């Protein structure tokens, strides 16, 4: 724990990343891609950042985060159709529902760590996935929850429509900015320091006198809530919510994203991971139908030879700061 220099709220790299994203709609179509991909990348980058709060910053290898993302997506759609079609309200419900789901899981597993934590999060993830598939009347089962609208942003003084993918992109970017800023503050706060201590040595953290259980539960609830936020955005982007985002596959994908980009060693790793993952899906997918075959192999090779992820290769100057 380095003392002295306070961690700035805004860093040059942070602003550079935000600005770089802001230019995406200007050139993404010129390089042969499409606007919706940008939206998807930002949503999954937000999700992966939220997830990494658990994996990278607290050392808790959750393998069931799809449940929270999915809870957010369904909650967004259901709130819109049953409570009121207001964007802020629906996103709030998405965060709340996912956080409650997170609290429920946390109550059972926060005394666990390591692989046990992974296995139990898989089990809980499957329970949520199963409920989503079987509750036909509420979630539409495997057909999904359809007709979710892209609600307009009401700012009081103005109302912005999000039907256009570019408009939605900038809205998601705004959410991304808020979330990353929040996470940055959070992990450099005393709370974040304690998480880091738990990651390094849980037993020692406990002996020093911290109520480790409470911190582990709190971080899962936070991470789940933010994952639910990303899920709500995804439901809006897709105009529907499906159970497959809650499956073990998708829960694994977000772990892959966080790890590929180097979430274990750098703050921005998950963002890089989400970009690489979704670009690979489209680029490899353009050549072959079985893109996961090749991407999975690349991932396995990465785990074997470069377990700290790409972040360790490309983000050196950044990592020194973010560590």
């Amino acid at each position: 724990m380095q003392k002295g220099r306070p961690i700035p709220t805004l860093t040059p790299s942070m602003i550079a990343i935000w600005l770089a994203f802001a230019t995406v709609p200007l050139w993404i179509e010129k390089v042969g891609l499409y606007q919706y991909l940008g939206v998807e990348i930002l949503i999954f980058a937000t999700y992966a950042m939220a997830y990494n709060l658990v994996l990278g910053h607290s050392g808790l290898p959750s393998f069931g985060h799809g449940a929270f993302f999915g809870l957010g997506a369904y909650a967004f759609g259901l709130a819109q159709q049953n409570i009121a079609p207001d964007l802020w309200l629906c996103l709030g419900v998405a965060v709340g529902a996912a956080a409650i789901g997170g609290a429920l899981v946390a109550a059972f597993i926060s005394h666990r760590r390591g692989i046990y934590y992974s296995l139990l999060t898989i089990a809980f993830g499957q329970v949520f996935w199963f409920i989503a598939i079987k509750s036909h009347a509420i979630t539409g089962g495997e057909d999904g929850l359809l007709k979710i609208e892209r609600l307009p942003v009401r700012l009081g003084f103005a109302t912005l429509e999000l039907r256009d993918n570019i408009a939605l992109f900038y809205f998601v970017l705004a959410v991304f900015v808020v979330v990353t800023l929040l996470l940055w503050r959070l992990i450099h706060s005393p709370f974040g320091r304690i998480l880091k201590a738990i990651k390094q040595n849980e037993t020692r953290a406990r002996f020093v006198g911290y109520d480790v259980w409470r911190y582990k539960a709190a971080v899962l609830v936070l991470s789940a809530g933010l994952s639910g936020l990303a899920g709500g955005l995804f439901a809006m982007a897709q105009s529907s919510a499906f159970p497959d985002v809650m499956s073990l596959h998708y829960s694994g994908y977000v772990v892959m994203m966080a790890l590929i980009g180097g979430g274990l060693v750098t703050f921005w790793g998950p963002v890089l991971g989400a970009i690489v993952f979704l670009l690979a899906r489209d680029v490899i997918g353009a050549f072959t139908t079985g893109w996961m075959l090749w991407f999975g192999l690349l991932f396995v090779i990465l785990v074997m030879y470069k377990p700290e992820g790409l972040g360790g290769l490309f983000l050196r100057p950044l990592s020194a700061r973010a560590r």
Partner: protein
Amino acid sequence: MSIVGLLPHLVNGLALGLLFALLALGFMLILGLMEQINLAHGSLFALGAYFAYAIATPRLPLPPDLLAIWAAVPLGWRFTAAMLLAPVLVAPFGVVLERMMRRTYGRDPLYGLLLTFGMAMVLEELIRTVWGTRDYMLPVPRGISGGFLMLDLIWSTYRFWAAGFAVVAMAIVWVVIERTRFGALVKAGAHDSEMVRALGHDLEKLRVWVFVLGTMMAALAGVILAPVWGIRPHMGVDAVVPSFLIIVLGGVGSFWGAVLGGILVGMVVGLSGAYASEWSMMSMYLLLIAVVTFRARGLFGKKSVLEA
């Protein structure tokens, strides 16, 4: 529902439980003896089923004449051949997987988990590429297919045969790990690897054999369960979750824990199927959560890598 009414569900649950135990056994071997979580276990299980399908139906990449000769062989022989050959054909995948996992030994167990998750995705996609996304059914020889009447109820003959196969396979594994020198060495290696090395045993080679045994068990489970559950690309993921669940339930590193865990899961699925068949597969997760809440290490668990 009276007790008599429940009986068929109990019997079916027991038969299903033995199949679940068989499914979990390969996973248990690799976890209990090598302290490695093999999330690709389900994919090896799926490969076993697909290979068995290719051998038994028969859809093999052979010259047409040879294939015609093989197709003329009675199904009973083809099914037996599938049961014996499919595990052997899947074994090399296990060897490759073990070689890859070597790089993760001694590191955070998370990396082993991630590596095998990646391989599970790769194998699932490989299956989709080779066999497509459609469902297949492994035909069962006439002698052991169909159903029979007992107590005025219709029972599936194959389920009982499958449960019998499962018992035989489990007995073989038990003998191998509890009654042979190989088993003793492997268990000693899991307990104190330095000592086993110091005594001059090649632990690397032993680990490969454990992995091969675990892989073959997974594939054999795939063959035996294929006629019951059907063959489809995501059967691997459908299978790996119950297997780890059974191990966590029974306790890591315990053979009888795995067997009992499997039977418990089978019973719970069978009984809940009697009341709410739609939700029966969920009951096992609730069982797991209930057991693990009160008994942190499962029923017969010892301290293990899971708590690292």
